[in-house]
């Protein structure tokens, strides 16, 4: 008859998977086996000569322990015996998982360990958790620093920017000597200094519809630290599609908001804002300014929510939008409902894959900075403007920024803030060639489009605004 030898015992059975033996009972067959391969004996039998408890012996499909005659059951030549060590185990609640927290970690997290809501079990959850932070900027700085300090095991960070001087008043993860470095590298150094136990996964890329799902799939929670609408919708939709909670915050000047989106029970960002605002209506921090402390406050609220989700403790900000006004120092809360008709998370979603979010948000494609024409408006490069001004050509430079911006830096343009433009259009001469500029090219594009709609024919937008001018033509013009 045949005896099937399991993988681990083959080393003691001449490396064979099947051994042919003869015998008229199960016991005789097993004895024949161990006589031929004596080393097998100690693996199958205890010192008392009994089959070890974890060794199962099957006669065809029957456990011999349940046969009437047990080991003395008769066998035929056509029968087969299988030796099957048991397969079992488990994470016992009563036992600490082996090699889980090191003594160093015990000391480091001791103030967590004595909190009943965290404890060792909670700290191990943090250690096992993988959190992705989109952006290593204002929100990402406190977020990643506190998550690293708290012992989150794996921190992924998506960012493709370099540190600039204007980041330092709020992005406390970067220092003065980091200006010019990749934010990811600078952030990594700071996080390692805080907690070397954390595994840091760097994604030096712009999050896109092409890469988002691939990046998200290895994480449990995503924290959105982005500063623009296309990426915010992209993060939301990718979270909904991946089934990962989206811990959200956004900031503007002195105010911020935070919530937890894309959980099964709660709403997503699109339930709150089905459509993005028209481009340019809501200025970015670069255009509108931001109190340096504000992202610190909101980023830490995000970090708190991330930790709560991992621990499963407390009441998460699901279905609630927290509004923070730092000038009044007031925190308010709005109730949010899941929208059953939501295109992303509703009962009949229409967003079943990631789309072109620049287009969705009404922005020109990424290559527009160098595109000659955007929405019918000719784009002028700073070098071209410089050349034509130097040549003494008749160009009217229109600056549509605010007076306080004009006071910081200007390039000789005529100031007419965007919001005043409709009332003061008559001040402009539509027969002249006009170059409109703002700080980085967004507001001036809107102004140029407005003028074109009102009969102006010779309109250009200065691509990249006064910032690009400072970078490409005249570094003595301050960047702000």
């Amino acid at each position, binding site marked *: 008859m045949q005896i099937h030898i*399991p993988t681990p015992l083959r080393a003691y059975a001449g490396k064979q998977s099947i051994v042919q033996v003869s015998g008229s009972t199960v016991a005789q067959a097993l004895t024949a086996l161990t006589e031929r391969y004596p080393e097998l004996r100690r693996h199958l039998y205890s010192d008392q000569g009994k089959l070890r408890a974890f060794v199962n012996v099957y006669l065809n499909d029957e456990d011999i322990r349940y046969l009437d005659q047990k080991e003395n059951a008769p066998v035929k030549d056509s029968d087969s015996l299988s030796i099957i060590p048991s397969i079992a185990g488990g994470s*016992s609640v009563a036992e600490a998982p082996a090699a889980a927290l090191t003594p160093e970690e015990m000391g480091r997290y001791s103030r967590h360990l004595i909190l009943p809501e965290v404890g060792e079990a909670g700290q191990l959850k943090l250690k096992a958790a993988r959190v992705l932070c989109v952006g290593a900027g204002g929100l990402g700085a406190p977020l990643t620093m506190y998550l690293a300090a708290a012992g989150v095991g794996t921190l992924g960070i998506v960012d493709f920017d370099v540190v600039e001087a204007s980041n330092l008043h709020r992005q406390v993860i970067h220092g003065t000597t980091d200006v010019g470095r990749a934010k990811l590298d600078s952030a990594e150094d700071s996080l390692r200094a805080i907690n070397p136990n954390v595994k840091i*996964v760097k994604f030096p890329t712009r999050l896109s519809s092409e890469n988002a799902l691939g990046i998200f799939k290895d994480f449990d929670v995503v924290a959105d630290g982005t500063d623009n609408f296309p990426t915010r919708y992209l993060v939301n939709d990718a979270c909904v599609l991946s089934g990962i909670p989206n811990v959200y915050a956004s900031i503007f000047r002195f105010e911020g908001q935070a919530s937890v989106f894309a959980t099964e029970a709660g709403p997503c960002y699109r339930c709150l804002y089905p459509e993005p605002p028209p481009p340019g209506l809501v200025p970015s921090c670069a255009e509108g300014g931001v109190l340096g402390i504000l992202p610190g406050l909101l980023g830490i609220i995000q970090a708190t929510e991330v930790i709560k989700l991992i621990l499963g403790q407390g009441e998460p900000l699901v279905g609630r939008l927290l509004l923070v006004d730092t000038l009044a120092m007031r925190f308010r809360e709005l109730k949010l409902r899941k929208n059953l008709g939501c295109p992303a998370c509703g009962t009949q979603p229409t967003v079943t894959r990631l789309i072109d979010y620049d287009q969705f948000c009404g922005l020109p494609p990424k290559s527009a900075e160098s595109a000659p024409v955007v929405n019918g408006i000719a784009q002028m490069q700073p070098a071209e403007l410089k050349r034509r001004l130097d040549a003494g050509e008749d160009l009217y430079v229109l600056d549509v920024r605010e007076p306080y911006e004009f006071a910081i830096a200007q390039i000789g343009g005529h100031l007419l803030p965007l919001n005043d433009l409709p009332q003061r259009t008559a001040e402009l001469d539509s027969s002249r060639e006009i170059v409109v500029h703002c700080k980085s090219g967004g507001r001036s594009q809107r102004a140029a489009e407005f003028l074109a709609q009102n009969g102006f024919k010779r309109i250009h937008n200065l691509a990249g605004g006064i910032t690009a001018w400072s970078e490409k033509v005249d570094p003595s013009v301050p960047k702000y």
Partner: protein
Amino acid sequence: MTSIPAALRMEQAQYDAIRKHGEETYPYECCGVLLGHSEPDANLVVDAVRAGNVRTDSAHNRYQIAPQELVRIQREARQQGLDIVGFYHSHPDHPAQWSRTDLAEAHWLGCSYVITSVLGPQSTGRCRAAETNAFLLAGSSEEDKRLEKQAIEVQSAEPVAVS
């Protein structure tokens, strides 16, 4: 001493299937059998076969594969020319580390024991497979057996930057 398979090698599809199984059975432990070939440098997984957890009494923190199911899986594997090279199970709300129970009840020396941590939905309503680790049951007998961390080599399409 025979050579020790330092790594556990599998395709992305099997890796994903193991983790998905853990998510599906949450809050209970899932378990399954890894079929393939034991090579000098690695246990090579060709197929990950799901098995039922017969520990219905305490399925959230215990697993056991019925021996008769194992007999069947082993027979089917043999017909495909495959061996049992390991097992997998999940740890709901526990790290992907072996427990004392796991070591005490591991008997397949030279085989890989894969553990996937599955974090619960809590208030979020979803559960997620977290870390996945493999441990080789090393040693030559019940008396000196030990679980040693084993690298999982996933043949994946596109590596990402990892520091």
